[in-house]
Every structure is written in C-alpha cells, then in structure tokens.
C-alpha cells in the first residue's frame, strides 16, 4: 500500500487526477441521491453545453499558468470579442466567414501583445494583463455600454446542434482539449512550455527560443478567449461588454483544481478539463438543490483554497 502511495507521490500529477476523479464520482453519486433530475441524459446535455465557454478560456489559461504566468485579460477579451462579433454580424450577417476569423485574429494579436509586453518591459504578467484588461474593458465600454448586435440564424443553430444527443460544441471542446494535450506531451514546441515554465533561465541556456515561446503561449490564450467568445455569442445572440468579467477569475479555478501549479512547469490540460467538469457539475447540482448563487461563491472560494493548499503542501514535503 505504502509503495503505491510513494509511487503516486513521485508522480504528483496522477495523484491530483485521482483526487479530482474521486471527487467527480462522489459528486455524481451524491447528485443521484439528492436530486432525481440530476442524473438524466437531458441534464448532462445541458451541463456539457454550459461548460464549453469556461472550458475554452481555462484551456488558454492552462498554457499560460504552465509557463509560470497568469492571464487576467481573458475576461475582458471575451467580452470585447462578443461585442465585435455581434455588431459586425448585425451590420453584415452574410460575412460570417470573415467576422469569425477576424475576431480570432484580433484576440490572438492582443494575447500576443500581452506576452510581448511582459518580455519587452520585463513587467510581471499579473500587472501587464491586469493593465491590458482595464484598457480592453474601457475601450469596449466606450464603443458600447449595453448588450447589442445580433447573430445570423446559422450561428445560433450551431450552438444548439446535437450529435447523438451530445452538444456539438462540447464535442468540439473535447477535441480541442485532446489536440492540446497531444501537442503539449508529444511535440517539441508543446514540451518546451514546460521547460520554460520550470526554469526560464535554464531553458534559455539550453538554447530554447524563450521569448518566442512566451509570446506564442499568450497568443494561444488570446485565441482561446476568441473561440470562447464565438461559442458565447452564438448562444446568447448578443455582444455584451460585461459578459466575460467573471470569467477571468473563474478560468483560474479549474486550472489549479486540476493540479497545474501556479509557479509553472507542472500540470496539464486533462486536469483542467476535469476541473472544469467538477466546477460546472458542482454549480449545476447546487442549482438543483436551490442553493443560492451567493453560497456558490463561498463554495468556489473554499474549493480554490483547499485545492491549492493540498497541492502546495504536498510539494513542500
């Protein structure tokens, strides 16, 4: 028995997966007992639909955290992208093929700018992305303070489309996560993120193009925020300058719950996906139990603290 524990200790990551999976199973079982509508196919369909946006933003956040950084601009970036997409499509609904790539390119560029600023100015990413968040939010509000715009029928249909009863958006999300996981583990550029996150100086001395990797990772985070905005605009049908605000902080919870260490270099996207599932499922169950969203905040805060204390304490030993 102790040998098993020791094996898990050596491989921290798998232990945190075990914890999250155990919690998920516990949640499903408890949910089944507590509410007769929780364990239904229909509810799981809704649940998968709900987790798409958070999942997408958290994926980008995972890359950044693996690098030892943090991206506080994602929320504002999502909001700004929804405003751009909805207003562009209201103006020219026929240019869907142009609007979406434009939004993605813009979001990626802003993400890349975040990375560039941390390198050029040598300012902590917390400050850079906080400042950028303020700038993006202000700019979006100056353009429009109220939710507005509209999306063509096709895009709205996409967000509700199902394949064998599973929302297409959720399938897309899982596919993106799978690709991201493969890329991180198997490719040279993916693995270099771990090196840079683990020890930036050592990575530089080993000849890795550190600056290029940093810019790439923040750009990826921007791209993920842009994708999340597309999902979000398709579902809500409007561009809302405030819709992403809460996402910034929410996107960090699944990352740390999934075992990715804030200091960088350790973790992965599978943990984040499980973390997103855990957080969304918990909120979903609490809704069924009529627990007010106010207590859901309390619970979310406690989850962050407990998850982080578990991970950090183990690292200390």
């Amino acid at each position, binding site marked *: 028995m102790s040998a098993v524990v020791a094996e898990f200790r050596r491989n921290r990551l798998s232990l945190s997966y075990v914890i999250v999976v155990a919690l998920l199973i516990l949640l499903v079982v408890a949910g089944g007992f507590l509410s007769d509508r929780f364990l239904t196919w229909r509810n799981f369909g809704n649940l998968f639909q709900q987790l798409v946006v958070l999942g997408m933003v958290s994926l980008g956040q995972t890359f950044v955290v693996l690098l030892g950084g943090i991206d506080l601009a994602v929320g504002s970036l999502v909001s700004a992208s929804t405003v751009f997409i909805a207003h562009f499509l209201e103006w020219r609904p026929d240019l869907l093929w142009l609007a979406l790539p434009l939004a993605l390119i813009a979001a990626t560029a802003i993400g890349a700018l975040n990375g560039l600023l941390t390198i050029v100015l040598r300012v902590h990413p917390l400050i850079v992305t906080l400042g950028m968040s303020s700038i*993006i939010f202000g700019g979006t509000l*100056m353009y429009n303070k109220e939710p507005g715009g509209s999306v063509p029928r096709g895009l709205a249909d996409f967000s509700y489309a199902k394949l064998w009863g599973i929302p297409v958006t959720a399938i897309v999300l899982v596919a993106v996560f799978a690709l991201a996981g493969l890329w991180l583990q198997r490719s040279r550029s993916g693995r270099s993120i771990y090196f840079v996150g683990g020890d930036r100086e050592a990575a530089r001395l080993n000849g890795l193009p550190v600056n290029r990797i940093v810019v790439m990772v923040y750009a990826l985070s921007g791209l993920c925020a842009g994708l999340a905005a597309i999902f979000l605009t398709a579902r809500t049908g409007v561009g809302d300058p405030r819709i992403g605000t809460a996402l910034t902080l929410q996107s*960090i919870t699944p990352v740390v719950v999934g075992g990715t260490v804030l200091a960088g270099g350790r973790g992965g996207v599978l943990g984040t996906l499980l973390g997103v599932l855990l957080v969304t499922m918990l909120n979903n169950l609490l809704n069924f139990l009529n627990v007010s969203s106010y207590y859901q*905040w309390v619970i979310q*805060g406690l989850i*962050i*603290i407990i998850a*982080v*204390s578990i991970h950090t304490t183990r690292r200390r030993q």
Partner: protein
Amino acid sequence: MAPLETPLPRSRGMSVASVFERYGLIVFLLALLLVAAALSPTFLQPANLVNVLTIAAPLGMVVVGQTFVILVRGLDLSVASLMATVAVLATAFKATTNDAIPLIFVAAIAFSAVVGLVNGWLIAKRNVSPFLATLAMMIILQGVRFAYTGGAPISTLPPGMGFLASGRILGIPVNLITLALLAIVFGIVLHRSRLGREIFMVGSNRKAAFLNGVAPDRVIIFCYVICSVCAGIGGLFLLGYVGTVSNWVGQGYELDSIVAAVMGGVALTGGRGNIFAALLGVAVLVVINNLVLLLGFPIEMQLIIKGIIIIGAAAFYRTRLA
C-alpha cells in the same frame, strides 16, 4: 526574478538618476497639477480640490495597507470585497443613534483583522500564493455578503456616519486627518522600527531573513492583518461618503490600490518601497481620474488611462532598477 537583487550602487552626491528616482513622482504630480489647472479652470477651485481629496482619502487608507503586503512580495485582491463587507456589517447593528459608532468601528476592525489573519495564515503557513488566497477570500466575502443582504442594498446607519466624509476638525476634513494619522503611525512602524526592518528583510529575501533570526511567517501574517484593517477602516470612511450601503462599495479599489502603490515605486518583487511615495501615487491617480472627468471625456477613459499607467509605472521602476 532573482537576477535583479543586486543593490544599487551608492553614490555620495546625488546623480541625476537618483534625483529622478526620488523626486520624479513629485515632479510628475506637479506637472500634472499645472496641466490640470491650465486645461480646466474648475480644477483649482477649492470645492473641486476638496472633492478630489475626499475621494482620495479612503483609497489612501487602503494603499497604506496594500503597501505592507506588497513589501513582503504579496498582494491583496480582497480589499475591495472586505470594504463592502465591512459596510454591510455596519448596517447589521440597525443603529439609528450615534452611540453605536464606536461599536461599529470596533466590530469592523475586529472583523477585518480576522480576515487578514486568515489571508496571512494561508499565505505564510499553507504556502498558498497570495494571488489565489486573497482571490478566494474576495469571492468568499462576496458570497457571505450577498447571502446576508439578499442582493439588495440596505441603509440603516447612524446619522453620524456622514461625519466621516464631510466632517471637519479645525477646518480640516476628518478623513484626511485619519489618513494622515494612519500614514504617520504605519510610516513610523515601517521606516523607523525594528518590525519595519524585518518587513523589508522578509520582502527582499525570506530565507536570509529567517537565517538572521526573523520569523518570516509572523511578519507576513502581520502585514496581511495591517492591510485588512486599513481596508476595513477605509471601507467605513467610504461608506460615510456614499451614504447607502451597496454590495459593491469599494469596487475597483483592489486594482486602484495596487496601481497607486506600484506608481509610488513599491516594487511588486518585494522589499522596496516607501509608504509616503505610495500615497503620492494615490494623488497622481486621483488627479488623473478627476482630470478625465473635468475634460469631459467619458468615464470609461479612466479605465484605459489606468491600464496604461499601471503597465507604464511598473515598467518604469523595473527599468530604473535594472
């Protein structure tokens, strides 16, 4: 972040660079005041200046505390949420007479101290990153507060609370007197006492501080308690200013207090900074905000300018140190 630890060379005379570093912010503030006076005739009117200072006072109180945690390489994102929670706590007494004000103050400070203690414990003893610990605290306080109020603002306050915002003693606004007292007391603690030296030691190198006989955990916890208490007091004064308790009293103060401190030269890498310079940062921030309004720009412009300033100021001090 380690390579930047080399101390600045000490020159006997004052080089241009060191003058700039020491007085740059004052020069910038004076220039800003001149620009403001030139661009807007209303700016220099006493009514507007008093208004600017009244807005600055609660923020200044928060910044005094925020400086302490940044000095030990921390950061407190829960200050704004704490301010609103303290404001709600003040209404929980359902007091209609001024007799309750001392009680409200004691309760607010005690509550804030407990919040700071939890933050500090998580960060020092449980090794949770300051960012996440105070972020979680912010969310928890928000949940507790909304669960209590049900989301609706309430306003049963002793009438005397308004005195905190508009009252004067010998013609000086009482909130400015309080800010000055806080700054002087904590300035002495920070820059003249043994504890203050320990804070700087822990901030610049926790291990070295420990080897020199300092108990880093205790110092860090102390800083978070101070930060929360300052924020709690700031919350009461802000409450006096706005009058009614909304669930979002103080929203944005976490960002603003960090911006002001960073602009005042408090290094986010810890161990470097001055409480009075941080307050100059408050002055610059508040004057800029005021100027944006006086010039008739939309208020959203403040967000953009604030964002540029926070990045710019952090970059400026980074470059100075490098």
